[in-house]
Structures are given as C-alpha cells and as structure tokens.
C-alpha cells in the first residue's frame, strides 16, 4: 500500500471523482493556478479547465451561494473556504440557505454540495485563523459533517461526501496536511456514521476526531507504559454520529473522556456527553470527562497558545482523573 500525505490523498480523490463525474466542479479562492493554499488542488485546473476549477475573488458569501445554486441545478460541487474562520463571512449562505433549502422546499431539491475547509491552531496563526468551529454547524440541522484524521479516512470519506446528494461540511486540519499514511490501491468508500476504533483498550474510552486523534493516540501510548489501556475512537463523522460504537465502548470501559480542539463550553463534547449519559447512565463509573480549548480566542504567542489548545498531557491527566475517581 503506498504512503501518501493527507494533501495527496485529497488531491487524488478529487481528481478521480472529477474524472468519474464530468459535471463535478470545484470552486474557491486560489484553487486554480496556485493549486490551493495547502496545495490540495494543484494541477487540477490544468487537467480539467477553468469551468470545472473556478478560482474566485475573495467573496465567501458568493462562493457558497453560487456553489449552492450550481448544486441545486445539476452541477455536483465542491466549494472550498480557505479557513473555517472565514465561514462566518458566508454564514447566512451556509446556515439559512444550504442547510435549509431542501427542507423548506418540502424535499423537492437535492443539494450535492461539499464545503471543504480546514481548522485548528498550533501554528501561531492567532485568533482569526486558528478556530475550530464545528460546534456551530453541529447545532444546525441540515448539514452533514466529516472530520477525518488520516489520509486513508480522508480519501474514503471525501468520496462518500462528493457522491452524497446532501450538503456535507468536510473539515480538514491544517496540522494534518503533511502527515502521512497508507492507502490501498483501488477504490474504496467509507460510509458516514461509522466511527473507527483506532486503538483498542479496556480501561477508558477516549473519543475524539481530527488532529486530536493523533494526540489521543500518543497519550494512549504513554498511558500504556503505565499499565493503563485506553481505547481511542476516531469519530470520523460528527453528523451522522456513530453512537452505537461509542456506547459499545462505554459499556466495556465504563469511563469516558471526550477531547476536541473547539472551545469546551458548548462544544461537541457537551452533546456527546449528554447522549452517552442519556443512553448509558448506569454504565458510567465516573462522570464523563470533557477536554476542549479554554474559553478564550486563540492567542498568538506560543506559551499562550499552548495553554489554550488541549495537549497530550491534558489527555493523560484527564484519563488519570477518570480512573482515580471513587
């Protein structure tokens, strides 16, 4: 199985899907000759031409709105918003239009639209270029949400996202782009709503997604050295959420830690904790532990940013708190 980077995995997937579906169009800023700010669309303009790889001015609202219009009228579209921090510039389009159009029309229209974006901090990009905003979209009915953490998952999930006739927000992480992983030859799709147990364990369940999965795995490795076996589950899709896999693990370990990079207050962790608590109250031996970013904007300076974004040590500490709770 060849090893590819996260970026290469996305790029080859887009190329394959564009070859497979002659209507598939990409739209976004600097995605043409420049190849996208992280190189995801490199070479695609040259291969598919300017009608299918449309580089736009800085106009997030118009990018999403026009992508919606195209998708509603027969053109399967993948729109790119360069940073998730810019999705608020197109929030009306995403939340009031894309998410609601099908429902409001009584199910008349299908919207084969993928909104690709990337999130996360850790590079000193400061408050308006480092956010993790998945909780905002999680709260709005009508949007599926995908958050892969490996090149393998990115490829399989992007294919499913593109072939889905519903709006999908596909959230990458800026620190994942250079990471490598193996992918099989040949085509495969990963269905939505299937979490992946990235590491089995019996003592505690760690639920996570996106870049945090890598930190969770490192934490789990460290904990194994201390005789604690943590089960790390990569949620992969937030909407739909694979509650079955989560609950199966909870019934096994009886202790749960949820970790994400978005702010802790009102983050995804709160909803997942509630679902677990509602469905498996009697299986819990300790309160569910939630770890998220501190409830402040992401600061620039390194020690401040490190203090705000959850680290491996925070996960280790959280697990120990769960285990030593009476």
């Amino acid at each position, binding site marked *: 199985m060849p090893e590819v980077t996260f970026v290469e995995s996305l790029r080859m997937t887009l190329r394959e899907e564009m070859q497979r579906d002659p209507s598939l169009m990409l739209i976004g*800023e*600097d995605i*043409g*000759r*420049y190849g996208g*700010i992280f190189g995801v669309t490199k070479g695609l303009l040259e291969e598919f031409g300017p009608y299918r790889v449309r*580089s*736009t*001015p*800085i*106009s*997030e*609202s*118009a990018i999403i709105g026009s992508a919606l219009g195209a998708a509603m009228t027969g053109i399967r579209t993948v729109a790119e918003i360069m940073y998730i*921090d*810019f999705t608020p*510039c197109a929030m009306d389009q995403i939340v009031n239009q894309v998410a609601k159009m099908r429902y409001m029309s009584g199910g008349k229209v299908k919207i084969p639209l993928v909104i690709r974006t990337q999130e996360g901090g850790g*590079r*000193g*990009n*400061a*408050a*308006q*270029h480092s956010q993790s905003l998945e909780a905002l979209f999680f709260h709005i009915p009508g949007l599926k949400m995908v958050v892969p953490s490996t090149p393998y998952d990115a490829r399989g999930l992007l294919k499913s996202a593109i072939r889905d006739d519903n709006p999908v927000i596909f959230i990458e992480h800026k620190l994942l782009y250079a990471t490598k992983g193996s992918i099989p030859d040949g085509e495969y799709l990963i269905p939505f709503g299937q979490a992946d147990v990235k590491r089995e364990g019996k003592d505690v369940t760690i639920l996570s997604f996106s870049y945090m999965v890598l930190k969770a795995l490192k934490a789990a490795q460290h904990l194994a050295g201390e005789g604690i076996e943590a089960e790390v589950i990569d949620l992969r899709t937030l909407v739909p959420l694979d509650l079955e896999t989560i609950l199966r693990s909870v019934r096994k370990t009886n202790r749960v830690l949820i970790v994400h990079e978005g702010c802790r207050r009102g983050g995804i962790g709160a909803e997942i904790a509630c679902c677990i608590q509602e469905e498996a109250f009697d299986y819990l031996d300790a309160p569910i532990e939630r770890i998220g970013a*501190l*409830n*402040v*904007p992401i*600061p*620039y*300076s*390194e*020690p*401040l940013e*490190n*203090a*705000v974004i959850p680290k491996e040590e925070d996960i280790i500490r959280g697990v120990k708190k769960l285990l030593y709770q009476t």
Partner: protein
Amino acid sequence: MTELIDQTLYLKMYEQMLTIRSFEEKAIELFEHNLIRGNIHPCIGQEAVSVGVCSVLRKEDYMLNTHRGHGNCIAKGADLKRMMAELLGRSTGYCKGKGGSMHIADFEGGNLGANGIVGGGLPIAVGAGISIQNRGTDQVVACFFGDGAVNQGTFHESLNLAAIWKLPVIFICENNQYALSTPIREAISISKISDRALAYGIPGVTLDGNDVRAVYTQMKGAVERARSGKGPTLLDCLTYRFYGHFTGDPGRGMTYRSKEEMEEWWGRCPIKRFRESLFREGILSEGKEKEIQIRVKTSIEEAVRFALESPFPDPEEAIQDLFY
C-alpha cells in the same frame, strides 16, 4: 517657510519609508530563524501608501488596518520595540502576545487594530465615523484594505453607508494587484477600482501608489473633504508587493507573477523614486542619507534587542483580557 516645512516633512517621510522596509526585512529574517510563529505578510514595496496616507493624519485620527499592516502601524507612529515584541509573542508587545503580526492595535495612537478577515475593517471604520460625527469633532478615519476586499459584501455596505451619511472616512485601497494569487484583472470586470466610487456617489481616484507625494496630495484633499463634513473618498493606490503574499508563499509569489512584471515594478520602487527626487531637489545629501540609515538601523536593532530580552507571557495570562 513652506519649503522648509516641506523639506522637513519629506525627510521624515523618507526615513519612515526606510524604517518600514528595514522592519519588514528584519521580520522576514526573524521568521526564517523561527522566532516569529504563524506567518507574516510583508508590505515591502508598499511603503509610499502607508507613509503618504499617515503623514496627513493627526494622532487622534483613527486608522483601520489589514493583515499586511506593519507599514501602516509604523507610519501611524507605533513604537517599533512594542511592535517587534508583539511579533515575537512577548508580553511587552502591543497586544501582550495575544494578537501577533496580523492584529497589532495601538488605541492610544488612534490605531483601532488590524483585521485578519479581508474586508473586516471597513464596517468598523464606518462606526468610528459615526462616533466622530455624533461627537462633532473634526477627526477622520483612514481605512486601509487591499484589492481583494473590494469584492466582499463589507466593501459595498460600508461605502454606501459612509456615503449616505457623509461620514469622515477615507477608504484607501492598497491595490497591489493581487489577492494572494488572484490578479485584479481576473477579479473585477471594471478597469479601475475607483470606478466603484461612482456607484456610491462619492469621489474616487486611482493614483500611482508608489509616488509618496502623489499619495500625500490626494490624501490631503480627501482628509480636508472629510474634516469639513463633505463625506468619504475612495483612493485606489496602485502599488506592488515585492515579497509573496505571506512568508509561506512558494517562490515568494513568483508562481503566479512573472519576472518581467516584478522587474518592471522594481523599477518603480517607491523608496528608490523618492530618494532620487530628494537628491535631485537638494533635500537629501549623502551625509544626511547616511545619518538616516544609521538611525533606522539602530532603531531596528534596538527593537529586536528589546523584543528578544522581553519575557514571554505567563501561560495564565491566556485567560485574561476577555471581558472588561
């Protein structure tokens, strides 16, 4: 007397332009040594716009700035030491390390902050204009944005609102011809950004943004309009960035720009042109130039030393400054 004032002003402007360029070059060097995190967006080549505009402003006039804003901060009177400290994430920086390169603010100096969202500063400028109008002072607001912002909804809403209420806002487009890799000619269907002023019933002018005296003259006119209650103006300043969009731009922006174009604009370098004219007019001499260069070099070195010697903020500061 006027001539003496002019000479003094021009020498100050020249020194400021040199300071901006040196600051940016130093910042790039520090970035390459991993002392600055994230990315920086150097404004090398755009010094005439910053200095030409800000030289007209008073301290109490407001300024809204962009992610490519170091030059504007310096021209508005920022302390280089505190700027450098902010870039290096130290607690002595303007924003105590919380903002970084893209978010330097100096409220005491009228700098209401730099925005990382393209077009984010325009509505804020309108609000500051309302504030001035309601208080009845003769302050003005200088609102900087790039050519990329003119296609954002905020541009249109803001120009319209400033126009209908005759707010004292000068909208300054630092038109360096590229929004990251998108050339302006592919992003607008009109020939000049200043044509859009017509749609809002305000004066608009496209000018040579690399001629600091031209920028100064136009800005002076716009500021007089604004101070006398005649409303906003749009200045479309044609300029060019000699560096890439940001420090992560492969090939320093040469993957989407041609060597010929770059060379042509180097020929129009604002510092080179101003220097030549000052020499021609006898305002600058080799001796004076040397003095200026030494002062600039010293001030940059001092700023770097101050920043390197400054402490990083305490991690616990991360949860401060959220609410008043």
